[in-house]
Protein backbone atom coordinates (compact mmCIF):
# COMPACT_ATOMS: atom_id res chain seq x y z
CA UNK A 1 0.00 0.00 0.00
CA UNK A 2 1.39 3.39 -0.98
CA UNK A 3 1.89 5.90 1.75
CA UNK A 4 0.97 9.44 0.79
CA UNK A 5 3.28 12.22 1.84
CA UNK A 6 1.79 15.33 3.42
CA UNK A 7 2.56 17.41 0.36
CA UNK A 8 0.85 14.90 -1.91
CA UNK A 9 -2.23 14.78 0.32
CA UNK A 10 -2.48 18.58 0.44
CA UNK A 11 -2.18 18.84 -3.36
CA UNK A 12 -4.69 16.03 -3.90
CA UNK A 13 -7.13 17.78 -1.56
CA UNK A 14 -6.61 21.11 -3.30
CA UNK A 15 -7.17 19.57 -6.76
CA UNK A 16 -10.20 17.66 -5.47
CA UNK A 17 -11.71 20.96 -4.38
CA UNK A 18 -10.58 23.34 -7.11
CA UNK A 19 -10.56 21.72 -10.55
CA UNK A 20 -14.22 21.58 -11.51
CA UNK A 21 -15.22 24.55 -9.34
CA UNK A 22 -13.65 26.66 -12.09
CA UNK A 23 -16.34 25.66 -14.60
CA UNK A 24 -19.92 26.80 -15.22
CA UNK A 25 -20.69 27.15 -11.50
CA UNK A 26 -18.63 30.36 -11.53
CA UNK A 27 -21.22 32.07 -13.73
CA UNK A 28 -24.09 31.06 -11.44
CA UNK A 29 -22.14 32.19 -8.41
CA UNK A 30 -21.48 35.58 -10.04
CA UNK A 31 -25.20 35.91 -10.83
CA UNK A 32 -26.05 35.30 -7.17
CA UNK A 33 -23.27 36.93 -5.15
CA UNK A 34 -22.42 39.68 -7.68
CA UNK A 35 -19.12 41.41 -6.83
CA UNK A 36 -18.97 39.81 -3.37
CA UNK A 37 -17.70 36.44 -4.58
CA UNK A 38 -14.87 36.56 -2.06
CA UNK A 39 -17.42 36.32 0.74
CA UNK A 40 -18.78 33.09 -0.75
CA UNK A 41 -15.33 31.50 -0.56
CA UNK A 42 -14.74 32.65 3.00
CA UNK A 43 -18.07 31.18 4.18
CA UNK A 44 -17.58 27.94 2.18
CA UNK A 45 -14.07 27.58 3.63
CA UNK A 46 -15.31 28.00 7.20
CA UNK A 47 -18.27 25.64 6.64
CA UNK A 48 -16.09 22.89 5.17
CA UNK A 49 -13.70 23.00 8.10
CA UNK A 50 -16.42 21.29 10.16
CA UNK A 51 -16.69 17.99 8.18
CA UNK A 52 -12.90 17.93 7.70
CA UNK A 53 -12.39 18.22 11.46
CA UNK A 54 -15.01 15.54 12.17
CA UNK A 55 -13.45 13.12 9.67
CA UNK A 56 -9.96 13.81 11.06
CA UNK A 57 -11.23 12.92 14.56
CA UNK A 58 -12.81 9.70 13.24
CA UNK A 59 -9.55 8.84 11.45
CA UNK A 60 -7.60 9.44 14.67
CA UNK A 61 -9.73 6.82 16.43
CA UNK A 62 -8.68 4.18 13.87
CA UNK A 63 -4.94 4.76 13.22
CA UNK A 64 -3.42 2.77 10.36
CA UNK A 65 -6.76 2.10 8.71
CA UNK A 66 -8.75 3.99 6.12
CA UNK A 67 -12.28 5.13 6.88
CA UNK A 68 -13.83 2.35 4.78
CA UNK A 69 -11.92 -0.24 6.81
CA UNK A 70 -13.00 1.42 10.05
CA UNK A 71 -16.64 1.30 8.92
CA UNK A 72 -16.57 -2.42 8.08
CA UNK A 73 -14.62 -3.27 11.21
CA UNK A 74 -16.97 -1.42 13.52
CA UNK A 75 -20.25 -2.53 12.01
CA UNK A 76 -20.08 -5.10 9.19
CA UNK A 77 -23.61 -4.57 7.86
CA UNK A 78 -24.28 -0.84 8.44
CA UNK A 79 -20.66 -0.11 7.56
CA UNK A 80 -21.06 -1.82 4.20
CA UNK A 81 -24.28 0.10 3.52
CA UNK A 82 -22.44 3.38 4.21
CA UNK A 83 -19.52 2.29 2.02
CA UNK A 84 -21.98 1.51 -0.79
CA UNK A 85 -23.51 4.99 -0.40
CA UNK A 86 -20.07 6.61 -0.56
CA UNK A 87 -19.23 4.53 -3.65
CA UNK A 88 -22.36 5.99 -5.27
CA UNK A 89 -21.24 9.47 -4.19
CA UNK A 90 -17.78 9.08 -5.73
CA UNK A 91 -19.38 7.55 -8.83
CA UNK A 92 -21.54 10.65 -9.07
CA UNK A 93 -18.51 12.95 -8.73
CA UNK A 94 -16.54 11.03 -11.37
CA UNK A 95 -19.48 10.86 -13.81
CA UNK A 96 -20.13 14.58 -13.37
CA UNK A 97 -16.45 15.43 -13.94
CA UNK A 98 -16.20 13.24 -17.04
CA UNK A 99 -19.30 14.79 -18.60
CA UNK A 100 -18.38 18.32 -17.51
CA UNK A 101 -14.95 18.01 -19.11
CA UNK A 102 -16.36 16.36 -22.22
CA UNK A 103 -18.99 19.06 -22.71
CA UNK A 104 -16.48 21.84 -22.02
CA UNK A 105 -13.94 20.62 -24.56
CA UNK A 106 -16.70 19.96 -27.08
CA UNK A 107 -18.09 23.49 -26.70
CA UNK A 108 -14.86 25.43 -26.32
CA UNK A 109 -12.17 23.66 -28.31
CA UNK A 110 -12.97 20.41 -30.12
CA UNK A 111 -16.27 21.27 -31.80
CA UNK A 112 -16.20 18.43 -34.31
CA UNK A 113 -15.12 15.75 -31.83
CA UNK A 114 -18.04 13.86 -30.24
CA UNK A 115 -18.41 14.23 -26.46
CA UNK A 116 -18.23 10.44 -26.18
CA UNK A 117 -14.74 10.36 -27.69
CA UNK A 118 -13.47 13.12 -25.37
CA UNK A 119 -15.03 11.39 -22.34
CA UNK A 120 -13.52 8.03 -23.38
CA UNK A 121 -10.05 9.57 -23.72
CA UNK A 122 -10.36 11.22 -20.28
CA UNK A 123 -11.48 7.95 -18.68
CA UNK A 124 -8.71 6.01 -20.39
CA UNK A 125 -6.14 8.52 -19.12
CA UNK A 126 -7.51 8.18 -15.57
CA UNK A 127 -7.40 4.37 -15.86
CA UNK A 128 -3.78 4.48 -17.02
CA UNK A 129 -2.92 6.55 -13.93
CA UNK A 130 -4.80 4.40 -11.40
CA UNK A 131 -4.41 0.84 -12.70
CA UNK A 132 -0.62 0.31 -12.58
CA UNK A 133 0.06 1.38 -9.00
CA UNK A 134 -3.12 2.65 -7.35
CA UNK A 135 -2.78 5.98 -5.64
CA UNK A 136 1.05 6.13 -6.04
CA UNK A 137 1.24 7.26 -9.67
CA UNK A 138 -1.81 9.46 -9.19
CA UNK A 139 -0.24 11.21 -6.21
CA UNK A 140 3.02 11.85 -8.05
CA UNK A 141 1.10 13.17 -11.08
CA UNK A 142 -0.81 15.48 -8.76
CA UNK A 143 2.49 16.78 -7.40
CA UNK A 144 3.56 17.81 -10.89
CA UNK A 145 0.31 19.11 -12.35
CA UNK A 146 -1.10 20.49 -9.09
CA UNK A 147 2.04 22.52 -8.52
CA UNK A 148 2.03 23.85 -12.09
CA UNK A 149 -1.69 24.69 -11.87
CA UNK A 150 -1.17 26.68 -8.68
CA UNK A 151 1.86 28.44 -10.19
CA UNK A 152 -0.22 29.49 -13.20
CA UNK A 153 -2.66 31.44 -10.98
CA UNK A 154 -0.17 34.24 -10.03
CA UNK A 155 1.01 34.24 -13.64
CA UNK A 156 -2.55 34.89 -14.84
CA UNK A 157 -2.83 37.66 -12.23
CA UNK A 158 0.33 39.33 -13.57
CA UNK A 159 -0.74 38.90 -17.19
CA UNK A 160 -4.18 40.43 -16.58
CA UNK A 161 -3.06 43.17 -14.22
CA UNK A 162 -3.29 45.89 -16.89
CA UNK A 163 -6.88 44.87 -17.80
CA UNK A 164 -8.30 45.10 -14.30
CA UNK A 165 -10.95 47.69 -13.55
CA UNK A 166 -11.61 48.29 -9.87
CA UNK A 167 -14.90 50.04 -10.65
CA UNK A 168 -16.39 46.59 -11.34
CA UNK A 169 -16.20 45.95 -7.61
CA UNK A 170 -18.49 48.86 -6.80
CA UNK A 171 -20.64 49.29 -4.75
CA UNK A 172 -18.26 47.66 -2.36
CA UNK A 173 -20.34 47.66 0.81
CA UNK A 174 -23.81 46.93 -0.57
CA UNK A 175 -23.77 43.25 0.23
CA UNK A 176 -26.83 41.16 -0.63
CA UNK A 177 -26.77 38.48 2.09
CA UNK A 178 -29.38 36.29 0.38
CA UNK A 179 -27.48 36.36 -2.91
CA UNK A 180 -24.22 35.55 -1.15
CA UNK A 181 -25.86 32.60 0.62
CA UNK A 182 -27.22 31.32 -2.71
CA UNK A 183 -23.65 31.53 -4.01
CA UNK A 184 -22.44 29.61 -0.97
CA UNK A 185 -25.10 26.97 -1.68
CA UNK A 186 -23.79 26.20 -5.18
CA UNK A 187 -20.07 26.61 -4.50
CA UNK A 188 -19.76 24.65 -1.23
CA UNK A 189 -21.03 21.51 -2.97
CA UNK A 190 -18.14 21.66 -5.44
CA UNK A 191 -15.50 22.54 -2.87
CA UNK A 192 -16.94 19.89 -0.54
CA UNK A 193 -15.52 17.15 -2.75
CA UNK A 194 -12.42 17.66 -0.62
CA UNK A 195 -13.81 15.25 1.99
CA UNK A 196 -12.57 12.49 -0.35
CA UNK A 197 -9.02 12.94 0.96
CA UNK A 198 -10.10 11.66 4.37
CA UNK A 199 -10.91 8.31 2.69
CA UNK A 200 -7.60 8.21 0.81
CA UNK A 201 -5.38 7.98 3.88
CA UNK A 202 -4.71 4.29 4.44
CA UNK A 203 -1.60 4.45 6.61
CA UNK A 204 -1.32 6.71 9.62
CA UNK A 205 -4.01 9.24 10.36
CA UNK A 206 -5.75 11.92 8.30
CA UNK A 207 -4.66 15.11 10.00
CA UNK A 208 -6.96 18.12 10.23
CA UNK A 209 -3.99 20.41 9.53
CA UNK A 210 -3.48 18.79 6.10
CA UNK A 211 -7.17 19.21 5.33
CA UNK A 212 -7.06 22.90 6.31
CA UNK A 213 -3.95 23.45 4.16
CA UNK A 214 -5.54 21.73 1.16
CA UNK A 215 -8.81 23.60 1.55
CA UNK A 216 -6.95 26.90 2.16
CA UNK A 217 -4.87 26.40 -0.99
CA UNK A 218 -7.94 25.62 -3.10
CA UNK A 219 -9.98 28.47 -1.61
CA UNK A 220 -7.25 31.06 -2.11
CA UNK A 221 -6.66 29.88 -5.69
CA UNK A 222 -10.37 30.03 -6.51
CA UNK A 223 -10.77 33.37 -4.76
CA UNK A 224 -7.94 34.96 -6.76
CA UNK A 225 -9.14 33.71 -10.16
CA UNK A 226 -12.80 34.49 -9.47
CA UNK A 227 -12.04 38.02 -8.33
CA UNK A 228 -9.73 38.42 -11.34
CA UNK A 229 -12.63 37.40 -13.51
CA UNK A 230 -14.89 39.99 -11.86
CA UNK A 231 -12.22 42.67 -12.23
CA UNK A 232 -11.54 41.95 -15.90
CA UNK A 233 -14.94 40.83 -17.24
CA UNK A 234 -17.38 42.51 -14.81
CA UNK A 235 -20.26 40.73 -13.05
CA UNK A 236 -22.95 41.09 -15.79
CA UNK A 237 -20.64 39.70 -18.48
CA UNK A 238 -19.31 36.96 -16.19
CA UNK A 239 -22.78 35.76 -15.20
CA UNK A 240 -23.88 35.65 -18.85
CA UNK A 241 -21.06 33.34 -19.89
CA UNK A 242 -21.02 29.56 -19.70
CA UNK A 243 -17.33 29.27 -18.79
CA UNK A 244 -16.26 32.72 -17.54
CA UNK A 245 -12.81 31.73 -16.28
CA UNK A 246 -11.95 30.22 -19.66
CA UNK A 247 -13.09 33.43 -21.37
CA UNK A 248 -10.94 35.41 -18.95
CA UNK A 249 -7.83 33.34 -19.73
CA UNK A 250 -8.55 33.77 -23.45
CA UNK A 251 -8.02 37.51 -23.01
CA UNK A 252 -4.39 37.02 -22.11
CA UNK A 253 -1.94 38.11 -24.78
CA UNK A 254 1.59 37.86 -23.45
CA UNK A 255 3.46 38.39 -26.71
CA UNK A 256 2.67 38.22 -30.40
CA UNK A 257 3.73 34.61 -30.67
CA UNK A 258 1.98 33.54 -27.44
CA UNK A 259 -1.46 34.92 -28.18
CA UNK A 260 -3.19 31.63 -27.33
CA UNK A 261 -2.04 31.39 -23.75
CA UNK A 262 -5.24 29.53 -22.85
CA UNK A 263 -3.99 26.36 -24.56
CA UNK A 264 -1.09 25.61 -22.15
CA UNK A 265 -3.36 26.60 -19.23
CA UNK A 266 -6.06 24.22 -20.46
CA UNK A 267 -3.49 21.45 -20.96
CA UNK A 268 -2.49 21.68 -17.30
CA UNK A 269 -6.08 22.05 -16.11
CA UNK A 270 -7.21 19.03 -18.19
CA UNK A 271 -4.50 16.87 -16.67
CA UNK A 272 -5.47 18.07 -13.21
CA UNK A 273 -9.11 17.12 -13.78
CA UNK A 274 -8.03 13.72 -15.12
CA UNK A 275 -6.19 13.30 -11.80
CA UNK A 276 -9.44 14.20 -10.02
CA UNK A 277 -11.38 11.61 -12.01
CA UNK A 278 -8.59 9.22 -11.02
CA UNK A 279 -9.08 9.96 -7.28
CA UNK A 280 -12.80 9.18 -7.56
CA UNK A 281 -12.04 6.03 -9.56
CA UNK A 282 -9.49 4.94 -6.96
CA UNK A 283 -11.97 5.57 -4.12
CA UNK A 284 -14.67 3.53 -5.90
CA UNK A 285 -12.22 0.62 -6.29
CA UNK A 286 -11.09 0.97 -2.67
CA UNK A 287 -14.73 0.95 -1.55
CA UNK A 288 -15.41 -2.22 -3.59
CA UNK A 289 -12.31 -3.81 -2.05
CA UNK A 290 -13.63 -3.11 1.44
CA UNK A 291 -17.14 -4.27 0.50
CA UNK A 292 -15.84 -7.68 -0.60
CA UNK A 293 -12.85 -8.78 1.48
CA UNK A 294 -9.97 -10.01 -0.67
CA UNK A 295 -11.28 -8.42 -3.86
CA UNK A 296 -8.27 -6.99 -5.73
CA UNK A 297 -9.03 -3.28 -6.15
CA UNK A 298 -6.72 -3.05 -9.15
CA UNK A 299 -8.96 -5.39 -11.12
CA UNK A 300 -12.00 -3.24 -10.42
CA UNK A 301 -10.48 -0.26 -12.27
CA UNK A 302 -11.76 -1.25 -15.75
CA UNK A 303 -15.31 -2.19 -14.68
CA UNK A 304 -15.62 0.95 -12.52
CA UNK A 305 -14.26 3.14 -15.33
CA UNK A 306 -16.82 1.75 -17.79
CA UNK A 307 -19.57 2.29 -15.23
CA UNK A 308 -18.46 5.92 -14.80
CA UNK A 309 -18.45 6.38 -18.58
CA UNK A 310 -21.96 4.94 -18.99
CA UNK A 311 -23.33 6.94 -16.04
CA UNK A 312 -21.80 10.20 -17.28
CA UNK A 313 -24.14 10.01 -20.29
CA UNK A 314 -27.12 8.45 -18.60
CA UNK A 315 -27.28 10.84 -15.64
CA UNK A 316 -27.64 14.07 -17.64
CA UNK A 317 -29.94 14.72 -20.54
CA UNK A 318 -27.84 17.50 -22.08
CA UNK A 319 -25.18 20.12 -21.37
CA UNK A 320 -27.77 22.58 -20.02
CA UNK A 321 -28.79 20.08 -17.35
CA UNK A 322 -25.16 19.98 -16.26
CA UNK A 323 -25.51 23.67 -15.42
CA UNK A 324 -29.01 23.52 -13.93
CA UNK A 325 -28.14 20.67 -11.60
CA UNK A 326 -25.65 22.94 -9.81
CA UNK A 327 -28.66 24.48 -8.06
CA UNK A 328 -30.43 21.35 -6.90
CA UNK A 329 -27.77 18.66 -6.53
CA UNK A 330 -26.12 20.30 -3.47
CA UNK A 331 -29.17 19.04 -1.59
CA UNK A 332 -28.00 15.46 -2.20
CA UNK A 333 -24.28 16.24 -2.01
CA UNK A 334 -24.52 17.87 1.42
CA UNK A 335 -25.80 14.56 2.75
CA UNK A 336 -22.36 13.05 2.02
CA UNK A 337 -20.33 16.16 2.79
CA UNK A 338 -21.94 17.24 6.07
CA UNK A 339 -24.59 14.82 7.37
CA UNK A 340 -22.77 11.49 7.01
CA UNK A 341 -19.43 12.82 8.39
CA UNK A 342 -21.43 14.07 11.41
CA UNK A 343 -23.06 10.64 11.78
CA UNK A 344 -19.63 8.95 11.55
CA UNK A 345 -18.19 11.40 14.07
CA UNK A 346 -20.96 10.70 16.58
CA UNK A 347 -21.23 6.95 16.13
CA UNK A 348 -17.91 5.54 14.93
CA UNK A 349 -15.84 4.60 17.96
CA UNK A 350 -13.40 1.68 18.28
CA UNK A 351 -14.73 -1.42 20.05
CA UNK A 352 -13.91 -1.49 23.75
CA UNK A 353 -11.37 -4.15 24.61
CA UNK A 354 -12.74 -6.58 27.21
CA UNK A 355 -10.78 -6.56 30.46
CA UNK A 356 -9.49 -9.64 32.19
Amino acid at each position, binding site marked *: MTKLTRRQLVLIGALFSLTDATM*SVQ*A*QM*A*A*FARQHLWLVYVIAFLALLVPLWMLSRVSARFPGRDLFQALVERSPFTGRVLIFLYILYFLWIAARDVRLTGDFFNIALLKRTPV*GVIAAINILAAVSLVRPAGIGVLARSSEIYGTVLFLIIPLVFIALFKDMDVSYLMPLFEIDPVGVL*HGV*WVMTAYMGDIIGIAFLVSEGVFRFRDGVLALGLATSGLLVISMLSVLTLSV*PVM*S*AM*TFPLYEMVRQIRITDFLDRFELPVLAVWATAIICKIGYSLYLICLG*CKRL*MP*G*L*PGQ*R*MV*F*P*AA*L*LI*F*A*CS*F*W*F*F*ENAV*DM*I*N*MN*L*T*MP*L*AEYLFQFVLPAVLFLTLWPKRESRG
Partner: protein
Amino acid sequence: MIARDLALFLLAIAAGLAADWRRWRKRSHFWFACAVYAVAFAIWAYHVKAHAAFHPVSELHRLLDVWLPFGDHNILGED
Protein backbone atom coordinates in the same frame (compact mmCIF):
# COMPACT_ATOMS: atom_id res chain seq x y z
CA MET B 1 -25.24 4.08 -34.90
CA ILE B 2 -26.84 2.12 -32.07
CA ALA B 3 -25.13 -1.11 -33.15
CA ARG B 4 -21.78 0.68 -33.46
CA ASP B 5 -22.05 2.27 -29.99
CA LEU B 6 -23.03 -1.04 -28.39
CA ALA B 7 -20.28 -2.92 -30.23
CA LEU B 8 -17.63 -0.41 -29.11
CA PHE B 9 -18.77 -0.73 -25.52
CA LEU B 10 -18.67 -4.53 -25.73
CA LEU B 11 -15.19 -4.25 -27.21
CA ALA B 12 -14.12 -2.15 -24.20
CA ILE B 13 -15.56 -4.79 -21.83
CA ALA B 14 -13.73 -7.53 -23.74
CA ALA B 15 -10.48 -5.55 -23.48
CA GLY B 16 -10.99 -5.13 -19.73
CA LEU B 17 -11.73 -8.83 -19.22
CA ALA B 18 -8.74 -9.83 -21.35
CA ALA B 19 -6.40 -7.54 -19.39
CA ASP B 20 -7.35 -9.18 -16.07
CA TRP B 21 -8.10 -12.67 -17.38
CA ARG B 22 -5.61 -14.84 -15.47
CA ARG B 23 -5.31 -12.94 -12.23
CA TRP B 24 -8.54 -13.78 -10.39
CA ARG B 25 -7.95 -15.81 -7.24
CA LYS B 26 -11.62 -16.28 -6.37
CA ARG B 27 -14.40 -16.95 -8.79
CA SER B 28 -16.80 -14.78 -6.75
CA HIS B 29 -14.51 -11.77 -7.32
CA PHE B 30 -14.55 -12.38 -11.05
CA TRP B 31 -18.34 -12.56 -11.05
CA PHE B 32 -18.52 -9.35 -9.02
CA ALA B 33 -16.48 -7.60 -11.72
CA CYS B 34 -18.70 -9.16 -14.38
CA ALA B 35 -21.77 -7.83 -12.55
CA VAL B 36 -20.32 -4.31 -12.63
CA TYR B 37 -19.60 -4.72 -16.36
CA ALA B 38 -23.17 -5.93 -16.85
CA VAL B 39 -24.63 -2.93 -15.01
CA ALA B 40 -22.42 -0.58 -17.04
CA PHE B 41 -23.50 -2.23 -20.30
CA ALA B 42 -27.20 -2.19 -19.33
CA ILE B 43 -26.98 1.55 -18.57
CA TRP B 44 -25.14 2.23 -21.81
CA ALA B 45 -27.59 0.15 -23.86
CA TYR B 46 -30.54 1.94 -22.25
CA HIS B 47 -28.96 5.33 -22.94
CA VAL B 48 -28.09 4.50 -26.54
CA LYS B 49 -31.43 2.91 -27.37
CA ALA B 50 -33.71 5.42 -25.63
CA HIS B 51 -32.12 8.85 -25.95
CA ALA B 52 -34.96 10.96 -24.58
CA ALA B 53 -36.04 8.62 -21.81
CA PHE B 54 -35.26 8.73 -18.11
CA HIS B 55 -32.15 10.63 -16.97
CA PRO B 56 -31.91 10.36 -13.16
CA VAL B 57 -30.09 13.61 -12.36
CA SER B 58 -32.13 15.65 -14.82
CA GLU B 59 -35.35 14.22 -13.38
CA LEU B 60 -34.15 14.82 -9.83
CA HIS B 61 -33.37 18.39 -10.76
CA ARG B 62 -36.91 18.91 -12.12
CA LEU B 63 -38.33 17.41 -8.95
CA LEU B 64 -36.26 19.51 -6.53
CA ASP B 65 -36.22 22.72 -8.54
CA VAL B 66 -39.78 23.56 -7.47
CA TRP B 67 -38.76 23.58 -3.82
CA LEU B 68 -35.75 25.83 -4.18
CA PRO B 69 -36.39 29.55 -3.61
CA PHE B 70 -33.84 30.43 -6.30
CA GLY B 71 -34.75 27.74 -8.81
CA ASP B 72 -35.67 30.24 -11.51
CA HIS B 73 -32.16 31.61 -11.74
CA ASN B 74 -30.08 30.13 -14.46
CA ILE B 75 -26.79 30.63 -16.18
CA LEU B 76 -28.05 33.78 -17.92
CA GLY B 77 -28.53 35.56 -14.61
CA GLU B 78 -31.18 38.21 -14.10
CA ASP B 79 -32.33 40.58 -16.82
